[in-house]
C-alpha cells in the first residue's frame, strides 16, 4: 500500500516524551548480549595473523606447522577465498578481509586459524611462516600524490596519462564563476589545513560467532550496524545463497560507521565451513585500531572572497582525502559538504581521493564533513576578522535558506542553518565572561542524512500487547523512539509495545543503521505499519458489530462506530478486539516496506570556550553548546545524547586523537593508552538546544540527528583555541606540542 509521507502538523500525545528505554534493565544488569557474549556448543576460537609491514609482497605462506598442531581445526589463507561468480565486483572487500599476494598496510590480515581454545590458536599463529618482500610505502596523503610516490594499487590508472596513480578519483562540484567572484571581492583569505586520521573508537571490538555447514547453510551472531547487509555481502563473498545464511545482530557496543563494513566476519564463516564447527572470532583492541575503521587524514586548501559588507563573492576548496589502501569516495563527499551551509553565487570544490598504505577507511559519523568544515569554518572566521564583522553575523549574512542552490547541486527546502545561527547569537553562552588565556569559537556543520530500504512488522498479541519488529540495529535508543511512534499511531500506552530487532530470517531486507536513518526510516515504516494494523483492527471491529467497515473510526486506541444509527454500540478497545481475533479472522498484524526517500538535511551551530595553557600548550574545554535542527525530536533524551556524543568525539579529534605512523609505515599508537579519547574528567557538561524545523518529507517531520554533531567541533575548537592563544591553528589535532609550536612560531 502506498502512503503519503508528507509532514502533517499533528499534535502528539507520547512522541516527544522522555520514557525509559525498553532495553534499559538488560543493559544495567549485564544481561544484554553483545558480539562477544554468544556461545555455541563445540565452538572454536578464531584468530587472525596480520602483516607487520606497511607494504610487502607475500612470496609464500607456510601453514603446515600450524595445521599439524593438535587442536587446530582450520587454517585459512586467501587461497581458501577464491574469486567466484558472486564476488567478482567485490574483490576490494575480500582483499581487505584477507591479503591476496600483497600486504597493503600494517595490520592487513594474511592468515587465520580456528582452534579448540585461545592458547592453541595463539600458538598456531606463531607457527605460520610468511615470507615477505618489502615494498616502498606511503602513508601521507600529500606524499602519495607526488610524482614518483610508491604506487599502492597498480591497476588504478590516471584517466589522462593511463599511468598508475594513487589518485583514484577527482570530483568537482559548484556553480557560478569563481574567478569573476574573487575579482569582485574586497577581501580574499586563502589558507591550508591538515587533519590527522582518527578512529571511531567504539568500546566494543568487532566480534562474531559464525557457524556454516558444508551444505552452505549457516548462521552468524555479530556486532554490526546492518545484519541484512552483512548477510548479503558475506554470502556474495563466499558464494552462498543469501537465504541460507541467517544473521542475528547482537546488541552493538558502538559503531559510528565502523561497523558498516565487514572485516573478519567472512574469515570466521570460511573457517567454520572448512572444519564444520562454530567459530567465535573477537578482535583485540590492537586489531581494531590497525585493521578496522579509521576515517581519512586530509589536506585541505580553502579560499574565500567577500565584500566589505560581508557578502561572500566566491568560495573555493581543494580537498585531498586518503582512503587507506583501497579506492573510495570520501574526498568526493568532503567536496560535496564543504560549503553546504552557505548561499553562494560562485562556488567550486575539488575532491581528490587518494590511496595510501593505511587501513581501508570506513565511515565515521558524517564521514568526510568534519575535515572540510575545519578548513571552511576556520577560513570563515579569518574573513570575518579581516572585514571587521562579528563571526556569527558574517555566517548569518551568508547562511543558506529555503530556495538556496546548494554548492553540491540540489535546491534546499526548509532548512535549519539560519535558525541555529540565530539561536547561537542569542544564546546565554555567548555572554558568559571569559578569563585569562580563554577564547571562544563557533562553527557550523551540515550533513545530508539518508533514508533507504526499510521494513517493519507489527503483531498484536491475544492480550492486546504489541510486538514491534524492526530491522534497523538499535545503536542508541531507537527501540524506545520507534515504540513511541507505534504507541502514538495506535493510540496505546508506550509500555504496551515491545520492540525487537529481528534476525534476517524474520523480516525483509533493511539497510544499515547509517546516515542517521534509524529513527527516520524505521520510524516512517512503523507509522505505516501501524496504520495498516489499524485498518485490520477496524475490519475486525466491523465484523464484531456486524456493520460496514466504512462506518468504523479509529481514535485513541479504540474503534468507534460512526453515525447515529450505531448509538447503541460502545467503542471497542484494541485489547477487546485482540481478544476476539481468533474468531474474527485470526492474528492481527500490520506490515510496511518502504524506500524512505526524502531524508531531511541537517544543520548545527556549536559554540565552544577553551582555556589554553601557554606554558604547556594543553587545552581545556570549559563550556560547550550544541544547537541542532532535529526536525522532530521523538525522544529528546536520545537526541540530546546524539548531540553530546558527537560533540565529545569531535572534541577528542580536535585536541588529541590521531593515528601516528612511524617512518616504517607502521602504526605507533594502536591502543587506548596512546590513542587517548576524551575521558570524563576532560569534558564539561555539554549544553544542548534542540530546534525543530520539520522535514516536509516525513509525517512527523523527523530528520536524522546522529551525525551532524561531529561536524562543527574541529573548527569551533580551532577558532576558540586560535582566539585564546592568539595564533591561527591549522592542523588537527591541536595537541599540546602543535599549540606550543604555533605559539613559538608566532613570537
Amino acid at each position: 500500500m502506498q502512503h503519503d509521507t508528507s509532514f502533517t502538523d499533528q499534535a502528539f500525545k507520547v512522541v516527544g516524551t522522555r520514557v525509559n528505554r525498553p532495553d534499559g534493565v538488560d543493559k544495567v544488569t549485564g544481561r544484554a548480549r553483545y558480539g562477544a557474549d554468544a556461545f555455541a556448543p563445540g565452538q572454536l576460537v578464531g584468530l587472525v595473523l596480520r602483516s607487520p609491514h606497511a607494504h610487502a609482497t607475500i612470496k609464500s605462506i607456510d601453514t603446515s606447522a600450524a595445521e599439524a598442531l593438535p587442536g587446530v581445526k582450520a587454517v585459512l589463507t586467501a587461497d581458501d577465498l577464491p574469486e567466484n561468480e558472486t564476488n567478482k565486483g567485490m574483490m576490494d572487500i575480500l582483499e581487505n578481509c584477507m591479503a591476496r599476494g600483497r600486504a597493503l598496510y600494517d595490520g592487513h590480515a594474511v592468515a587465520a586459524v580456528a582452534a579448540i581454545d585461545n592458547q592453541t590458536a595463539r600458538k598456531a599463529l606463531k607457527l605460520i611462516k610468511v615470507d615477505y618482500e618489502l615494498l616502498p610505502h606511503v602513508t601521507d596523503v600529500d606524499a602519495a600524490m607526488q610524482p614518483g610516490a610508491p604506487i599502492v594499487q597498480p591497476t588504478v590508472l590516471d584517466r589522462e596519462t593511463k599511468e598508475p596513480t594513487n589518485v583514484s578519483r577527482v570530483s568537482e562540484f559548484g556553480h557560478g564563476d569563481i574567478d569573476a567572484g574573487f575579482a569582485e571581492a574586497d577581501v580574499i583569505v586563502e589558507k591550508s589545513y591538515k587533519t590527522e586520521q582518527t578512529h571511531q573508537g567504539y568500546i566494543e571490538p568487532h566480534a562474531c560467532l559464525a557457524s556454516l555447514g558444508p551444505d552452505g547453510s549457516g548462521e552468524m551472531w555479530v556486532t554490526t550496524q546492518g545484519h541484512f547487509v552483512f548477510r548479503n555481502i558475506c554470502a556474495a563473498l563466499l558464494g552462498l545463497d543469501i537465504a541460507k545464511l541467517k544473521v542475528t545482530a547482537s546488541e552493538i557496543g558502538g559503531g559510528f560507521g565502523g561497523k558498516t563494513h565487514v572485516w573478519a566476519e567472512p574469515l570466521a564463516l570460511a573457517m567454520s565451513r572448512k572444519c564444520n564447527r562454530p567459530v567465535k572470532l573477537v578482535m583485540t583492541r590492537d586489531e581494531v585500531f590497525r585493521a578496522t575503521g579509521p576515517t581519512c587524514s586530509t589536506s585541505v586548501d580553502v579560499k574565500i572572497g567577500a565584500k566589505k559588507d560581508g557578502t561572500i563573492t566566491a568560495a573555493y576548496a581543494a580537498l585531498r582525502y586518503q582512503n587507506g589502501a583501497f579506492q573510495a569516495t570520501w574526498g568526493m563527499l568532503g567536496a560535496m559538504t564543504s560549503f553546504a551551509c552557505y548561499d553562494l553565487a560562485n562556488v567550486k570544490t575539488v575532491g581528490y581521493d587518494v590511496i595510501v598504505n593505511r587501513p581501508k577507511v570506513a565511515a565515521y559519523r558524517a564521514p568526510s564533513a568534519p575535515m572540510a568544515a575545519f578548513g571552511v569554518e576556520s577560513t570563515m572566521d579569518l574573513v570575518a576578522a579581516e572585514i571587521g564583522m562579528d563571526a556569527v553575523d558574517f555566517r548569518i549574512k551568508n547562511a543558506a535558506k529555503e530556495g538556496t542552490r546548494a554548492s553540491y547541486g540540489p535546491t534546499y527546502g526548509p532548512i535549519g542553518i539560519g535558525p541555529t545561527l540565530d539561536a547561537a547569537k542569542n544564546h546565554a553562552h555567548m555572554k558568559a565572561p571569559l578569563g585569562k588565556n580563554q577564547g571562544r569559537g563557533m562553527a557550523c556543520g551540515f550533513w545530508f542524512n539518508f533514508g533507504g530500504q526499510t521494513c517493519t512488522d507489527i503483531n498484536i498479541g491475544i492480550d492486546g500487547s504489541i510486538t514491534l519488529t524492526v530491522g534497523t540495529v538499535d545503536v542508541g535508543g531507537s527501540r524506545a523512539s520507534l515504540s513511541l511512534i507505534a504507541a502514538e499511531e495506535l493510540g496505546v500506552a508506550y509500555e504496551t509495545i515491545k520492540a525487537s530487532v529481528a534476525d534476517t530470517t524474520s523480516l525483509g531486507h533493511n539497510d544499515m543503521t547509517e546516515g542517521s536513518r534509524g529513527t527516520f526510516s524505521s520510524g516512517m515504516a512503523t507509522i505505516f505499519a501501524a496504520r495498516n494494523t489499524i485498518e485490520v483492527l477496524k475490519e475486525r471491529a466491523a465484523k464484531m458489530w456486524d456493520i460496514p467497515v466504512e462506518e468504523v473510526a479509529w481514535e485513541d486506541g479504540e474503534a468507534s462506530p460512526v453515525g447515529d444509527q450505531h448509538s447503541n454500540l460502545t467503542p471497542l478497545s484494541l485489547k477487546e478486539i485482540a481478544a476476539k481475533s481468533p474468531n474474527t479472522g485470526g492474528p492481527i498484524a500490520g506490515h510496511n516496506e518502504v524506500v524512505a526517500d526524502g531524508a531531511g538535511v541537517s544543520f548545527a551551530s556549536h559554540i565552544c570556550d577553551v582555556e589554553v595553557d601557554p606554558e604547556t600548550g594543553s587545552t581545556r574545554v570549559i563550556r560547550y553548546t550544541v544547537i541542532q535542527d532535529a526536525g522532530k525530536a521523538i525522544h529528546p533524551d536520545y537526541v540530546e545524547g546524539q548531540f553530546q556524543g558527537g560533540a565529545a568525539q569531535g572534541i577528542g579529534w580536535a585536541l588529541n586523537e590521531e593515528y601516528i605512523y612511524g617512518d616504517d609505515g607502521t602504526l605507533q599508537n594502536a591502543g587506548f593508552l596512546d590513542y587517548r579519547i576524551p575521558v570524563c574528567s576532560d569534558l564539561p557538561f555539554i549544553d544542548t538546544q534542540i530546534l525543530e524545523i520539520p522535514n516536509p518529507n516525513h509525517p512527523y517531520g523527523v530528520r536524522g540527528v546522529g551525525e551532524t554533531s561531529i561536524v562543527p567541533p574541529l573548527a569551533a575548537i580551532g577558532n576558540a583555541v586560535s582566539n585564546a592563544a592568539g595564533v591561527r591553528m591549522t592542523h588537527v589535532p591541536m595537541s599540546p606540542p602543535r599549540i606550543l609550536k604555533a605559539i613559538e612560531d608566532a613570537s
Partner: protein
Amino acid sequence: MAVLVSTTVNGDPVEFACPEDETLLDSLRNRAGLTGVKEGCGTGDCGACSITLDGRLICSCLVLGVEANGREVGTVEGLSDGSNLHPLQEQFIEHAALQCGVCTPGFLVAANALLTRNPDPDEQEIRYALAGNLCRCTGYDKIVRAVQAAAAEMRG
C-alpha cells in the same frame, strides 16, 4: 596446565579451572558465565571490565584468574538486590545515561565504588573517579548526572 580456583563471586561460592595465564576477565566471562564484564581493550585503559576484588576497584583484564583464589569478586551482576535495581542502575535508565550500553557495567561498578567511599561527591570528584572508564557514545554528560542523582537518592 589448568589450575583449580575457589573464589566468591557476588557472594556465591564459585569454582573453576583455568590456565595459569588466563585473565580474570576471561575466567569470569567464559568459565563463570558472567558476560556483564566486558573486554574493550585488554590493557587496563577502558574500564569496561571493572570489577571489585576484595572491595577494591580493578580492571579484571589486568588480573589473572588464579589470583581470585580465596578472594571476593564483585561484578555488575551483583549490584541489584534481587529484582530491586540498585539506585545507580535506576538512575542510569532514568537519565538516559547509556546509548550502546557496553561500557555501562564498568561505569556502574566504578560509580558504586566511588559512592561506597564517598557518598556525597561533587562533580569534579565524580569525573575523576570515572576517568578510568571510557564511554564513546554519551560525552559523559548524562552519566555524571545519573551518578549525582543516585548519590542524592542513596543519601536519602
